[in-house]
């Protein structure tokens, strides 16, 4: 996975590009695919109860995460379909960023599950070199903010 900062910056680009009001919903979407699968990392700090944690990898699949967003959307007192849409917007950006990563073998994102179990990867950058994604993403984000500010000054409402 790229680091979560990269995922968040990509989410912020989408937020600015689509003028999203509830920014946190997109940001939840950008982190949600990694939250449960990475719970095993807590095992680095303390002993975890005996459990099949591999099942959490299922949440790193677009179809499964879509179902999860359908279930958690009612937690928000906001337009149901907007919540689902914004969370999935963030999640899709997460999956596409992850699919750009490089691996030795067949690792990647199972984009077409349940139709196909195959994992897809563009094999572009190693996960520890995610700054190749982060730095351009920060530049794009700043550029969007600047363009929006210039447009606001040029065409005041």
């Amino acid at each position, binding site marked *: 996975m790229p680091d*979560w900062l990269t*995922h968040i910056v990509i989410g912020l680009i989408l937020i600015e590009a689509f003028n999203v009001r509830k920014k946190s919903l997109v940001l939840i979407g*950008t*982190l949600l695919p990694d939250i449960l699968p990475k719970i095993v990392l807590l095992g680095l700090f303390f002993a975890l109860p005996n459990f099949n944690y*591999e*099942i959490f990898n*299922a949440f790193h699949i677009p179809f499964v995460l879509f179902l999860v967003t359908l279930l958690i959307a009612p937690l928000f007192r906001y337009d149901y379909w907007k919540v689902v849409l914004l969370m999935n917007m963030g999640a899709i950006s997460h999956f596409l960023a992850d699919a750009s990563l490089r691996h030795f073998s067949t690792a990647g994102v199972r984009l077409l599950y349940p139709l196909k179990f195959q994992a897809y990867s563009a094999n572009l950058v190693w996960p520890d070199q995610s700054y190749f994604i982060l730095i351009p993403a920060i530049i794009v984000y700043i550029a969007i903010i600047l363009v929006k500010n210039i447009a606001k000054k040029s065409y005041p409402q």
Partner: protein
Amino acid sequence: MRKLTLFGYLLVLVLLIITLFHFSSVYAGNEDKFDMISNPEKYPGVTKQFMGDYGGSFNGGFYLAYNEQIIPIHYSEEYSPPHFGNILVYGTFNKEGYVEAIGIHNYDYNYVIYFISLIAFFFGVWLFFKEWKITYRGFKSA
């Protein structure tokens, strides 16, 4: 309308549970947890990638700490351990209890990535509670 919504919600929940069971059964077949130190004869010729920590070197390779096991990795090329990170090994299992590495990648400064991710996570939590207030009926706009 309320009944229909509830029915739809239950349907999605059932679909999610079935999907998790299906994934679990297929994944178990694909990503079988291997115990190659105790049962090396089970895995000869199996080629896969796995990530672990550096556990010291020996002549012709190094040890990888993976899943509470120390696996000898035979690697013919010159190798230096990662800086603040893990090692990704792609190799073929041997029945004598070692892995013949085909490719190796050092995840240098991977621990730094975890730290950066933690900061990003807290930023996300901060922004979330800036926009949402928790109530007994869920989250409402702050």
